[in-house]
């Protein structure tokens, strides 16, 4: 496909020198000047386009060349291929100051469309507006059945989306009226077929009969995009285009922008009266243009809803039916927002539609706009849409998590509709296990969306359960994989990872003992309970190397950070305690995916101190659990470092009056033992070398504890001198590297110095709350670093004076 020959062609085009480009331009000029529109010109223009578009830096083509390109574009006799290339080259050079293209004198609508594409690329609002005016003039001047008006409608749509004020109100109203006509009154006969005739017969035109529906039946009502035939008339083309631009047009052409004052003015009473009036279509031809268009659009959407019920003969038409259904519901939503009188007529048919769609898995993507409609209008219509949301959140994610497009649309729906959920937010929140299935299966495209969604999903009642599930997300991915394998028959392109066969896992999935745990993991709603999934980690180990699981594992640290930043806003003391304990518990109980534990530990180690800061008494409250954690076996250093630091920081009477000397002593002993263990043990293949941060934080914490329970000071001084001498002698293998040893030495010295003045040590290590707020520039007496530095200098000078 993309051979090295093509790669070299691209590079050639980028590196072509100005002289060669100049030669090509001259050649192009010569050919276009004498209107030689044969294959030479085509070839030259193709090369020119490649050269101009291949590089991101601008190319100079010379004024005569640009002028000739413009005149060729506007010339009536030039073949389409060359005109397209001229337009493409001019567009590629945009925005360009030397463009003098004008659309004023072009009559051919196809050419006008091409010129428009160049002008729209210039980025000049004024040009856009004048283009819009010109196009409308051409539209208005033609007969409604005139040829090729379909080249112009997309231009109008683009112009109004780029410059909403490009058209005057009068023009907008006139075009709205015509759009309504095209939507509703297109011909129901197929276009005329011209057969060229054989040797003996004359060419004649054949009438092909009426248009058909997608299932082959003769059309029962007016023409829509779901009507088929062998040939189409011009007004049927306009019908297709009008519907394609309808939603954008309705939104852009509202007077005063999207907050239409017209709709706001109508009171409820008036709305209900109008609904009685508009229920009869005889009054419709008396409507002003905007209302006329809305009425016709409404009828069109009703017809599409009916047509989407038919069984299409071709697959492409079946796909189009779904797209049309979605669009019809979206247009109805806009119509009801602009004119609440439509609501009465729409609700019943949408409820029927929902019932029809929910049973059919092929139409699942169409359920989202229906749910959105009920979100927007349910309150106003006093309709209880609970059943809709229940079905949406409890069934769909569990059955369709493996479809990437549905997953994306579902998550976007949740994000966009957040402000509208109101009292239904509870349904969204309790369905987080189901929502996480989308994330577990499709993590790369959905991670950033979930980071934005998490703050709204986090709730004090479910936070603990959610954290467990987030930590188990890769395990959920593996379980979903197994679920798919066990449920689906083997198809040619199964959604699970085909490179990994896991027969043992499938058996485990069906095993009755593990059933309960699997069901808990794959639950649809927050259950309020927490289960230890450790047995599952073992069972699912063969799938841990699976690419999808690894991708999910890479996304989890980001999600954890988002979770914690959301939960710390709403957590009270009790919740902070629970979460902190959860961190400790889970730090060594994780699904073993390569690289996962390290990533999670990094996040947990920064979050544990944050939780302690939120609720400092938790260190004292859970002293027992912390002692167990410190004394027990562990693999990673990050979490331990932050736990030890938190102990040193918050285990004091100033943070919690219940802190006893006994507790301090207990911790001291445990940490002392730990310090000996990490420094004395020889590094082996199973135990990694101890990072110096662990040693220094242990020393600092021990010193802090000693400053609070002063009997311990002699012990800790001894310990520190031992550490210092250990760091000085390179014989032990536990402290590699001169830098690390130096850091330990320096820290040990500082701490020893501080301990020489116990009351200062206490002040330094357990500062009161006022002191620990940095106010260096305001109050030098209470600045901690200054105190530290002064003490160090004092002690060193003193030490220098003392003998030995």
């Amino acid at each position, binding site marked *: 496909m993309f051979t090295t020959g093509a790669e070299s062609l691209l590079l050639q085009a980028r590196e072509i020198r100005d002289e060669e480009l100049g030669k090509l331009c001259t050649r192009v000029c010569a050919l276009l000047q004498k209107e030689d529109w044969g294959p030479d010109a085509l070839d030259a223009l193709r090369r020119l386009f490649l050269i101009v578009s291949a590089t991101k830096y601008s190319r100079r083509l010379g004024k005569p060349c640009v002028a000739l390109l413009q005149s060729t574009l506007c010339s009536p006799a030039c073949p389409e291929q060359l005109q397209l290339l001229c337009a493409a080259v001019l567009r590629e050079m945009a*925005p360009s100051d030397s463009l003098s293209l004008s659309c004023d004198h072009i009559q051919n609508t196809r050419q006008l469309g091409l010129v428009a594409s160049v002008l729209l690329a210039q980025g000049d609002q004024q040009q856009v507006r004048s283009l819009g005016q010109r196009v409308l003039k051409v539209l208005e001047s033609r007969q409604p059945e005139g040829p090729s008006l379909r080249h112009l409608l997309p231009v109008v749509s683009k112009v109004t989306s780029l410059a909403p004020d490009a058209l005057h109100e009068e023009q907008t109203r006139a075009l709205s009226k015509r759009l309504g006509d095209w939507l509703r009154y297109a011909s129901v006969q197929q276009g005329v077929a011209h057969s060229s005739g054989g040797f003996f017969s004359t060419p004649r035109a054949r009438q092909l009969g009426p248009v058909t529906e997608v299932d082959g039946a003769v059309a029962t009502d007016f023409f829509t*995009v779901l009507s088929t035939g062998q040939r189409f008339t011009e007004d049927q083309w306009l019908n297709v285009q009008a519907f394609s631009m309808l939603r954008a047009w309705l939104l852009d052409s509202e007077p005063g922008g999207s907050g239409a004052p017209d709709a706001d003015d109508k009171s409820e009473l008036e709305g209900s009266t109008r609904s009685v009036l508009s229920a009869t279509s005889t009054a419709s031809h008396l409507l002003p243009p905007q209302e006329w268009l809305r009425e016709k659009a409404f009828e069109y959407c009703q017809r599409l809803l009916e047509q989407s019920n038919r069984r299409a003969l071709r697959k492409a038409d079946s796909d189009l039916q779904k797209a049309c259904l979605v669009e019809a519901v979206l247009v109805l939503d806009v119509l009801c927002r602009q004119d609440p009188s439509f609501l009465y007529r729409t609700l019943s048919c949408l409820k029927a539609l929902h019932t029809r769609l929910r049973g059919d898995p092929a139409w699942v993507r169409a359920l989202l706009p229906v749910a959105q409609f009920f979100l927007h209008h349910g309150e106003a219509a006093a309709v209880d849409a609970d059943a809709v949301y229940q079905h949406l959140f409890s069934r769909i994610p569990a059955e369709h998590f493996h479809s990437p497009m549905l997953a994306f649309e579902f998550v976007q729906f949740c994000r966009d509709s957040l402000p509208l959920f109101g009292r239904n937010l509870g349904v969204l929140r309790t369905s987080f296990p189901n929502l996480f299935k989308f994330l577990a299966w499709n993590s790369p495209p959905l991670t950033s969306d979930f980071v934005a969604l998490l703050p709204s999903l986090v709730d004090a009642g479910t936070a603990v359960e959610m954290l467990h599930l987030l930590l188990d997300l890769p395990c959920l991915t593996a379980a979903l994989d197994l679920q798919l394998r066990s449920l689906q028959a083997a198809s040619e392109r199964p959604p699970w990872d085909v490179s990994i066969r896991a027969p043992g896992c499938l058996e485990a999935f069906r095993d009755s003992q593990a059933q309960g745990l699997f069901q808990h993991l794959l639950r649809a709603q927050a259950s309020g309970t927490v289960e230890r999934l450790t047995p599952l980690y073992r069972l699912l180990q063969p799938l841990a190397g699976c690419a999808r699981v690894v991708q999910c594992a890479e996304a989890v640290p980001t999600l954890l950070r988002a979770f914690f930043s959301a939960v710390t806003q709403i957590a009270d003391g009790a919740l902070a305690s629970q979460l902190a304990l959860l961190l400790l518990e889970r730090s060594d109980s994780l699904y073993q995916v390569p690289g996962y534990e390290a990533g999670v530990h990094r996040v947990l180690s920064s979050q544990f101190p944050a939780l302690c800061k939120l609720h400092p008494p938790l260190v004292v409250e859970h002293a027992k659990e912390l002692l167990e954690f410190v004394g027990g076996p562990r693999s990673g250093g990050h979490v331990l470092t932050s736990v030890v630091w938190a102990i040193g920081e918050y285990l004091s009477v100033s943070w919690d009056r219940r802190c006893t000397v006994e507790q301090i002593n207990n911790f001291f002993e445990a940490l002392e033992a730990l310090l000996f263990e990490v420094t004395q043990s020889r590094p082996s293949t199973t135990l990694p070398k101890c990072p110096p941060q662990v040693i220094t934080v242990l020393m600092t914490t021990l010193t802090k504890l000693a400053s609070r329970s002063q009997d311990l000071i002699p012990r800790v001084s001894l310990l520190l001198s031992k550490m210092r001498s250990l760091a000085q002698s390179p014989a032990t293998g536990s402290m590699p590297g001169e830098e690390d040893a130096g850091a330990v030495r320096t820290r040990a010295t500082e701490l020893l110095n501080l301990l020489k003045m116990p009351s200062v040590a206490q002040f330094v290590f357990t500062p009161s709350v006022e002191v620990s707020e940095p106010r260096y520039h305001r109050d030098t007496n209470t600045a901690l670093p200054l105190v530290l530095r002064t003490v160090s200098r004092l002690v060193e000078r003193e030490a220098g004076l003392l003998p030995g």
Partner: protein
Amino acid sequence: MVHVFLIHTLRATKAEEGLCRVLYSCFFGTENSPNDPQPHGAERDRLLRKEQILAVARQVESMCQLQQQACGRPAVDLQPQSSDDPVRLHESPCGAFRLTAGDPFQEPRTVVWLGVLSLGFALVLNAHENLLLAEGTLRLLARLLLEHLRLLVPTANLLLRADCIEGILARFLPHGQLLFLNDQFVQGLEKEFSAAWTR
């Protein structure tokens, strides 16, 4: 409304040689805000557009690679076995993702992409679009381009066939307008296109 249509190279894995190259791109209208006080140089605007397109192409490439990896599909899946083998577009990897405001476009956008035989096709759309229609249109464009440019032939090259691409876009995605075309309309337009193209 489509803002950009682009075609770019798609490597099977990150480890493969080469860079992601944009082979064709088309901007439908520009993104300048109406009350933009600072007049930008024309060159700078163009440079910005090209960079934006390349950023999108790279993201599409990595999304496609990740999706293929996750499905365990071997890298060779992206190469055609023979030119007679019909490419089954409804089985090609496809997906969508969101671009936040400022990264790289001023306003939030959605990208819908399709990966076919070491080429990536992508549409950059408004944030709230009918994605079913966008997906269908993208598949249609890919099929038409594969057929009319005869991209399955190993020596085929779309770099010098911009007129063909432009012709298809002008009919099936005029000015970035997504059209609701049923099968018969598509056939009619295709016939029209084939008739107008001499080569």
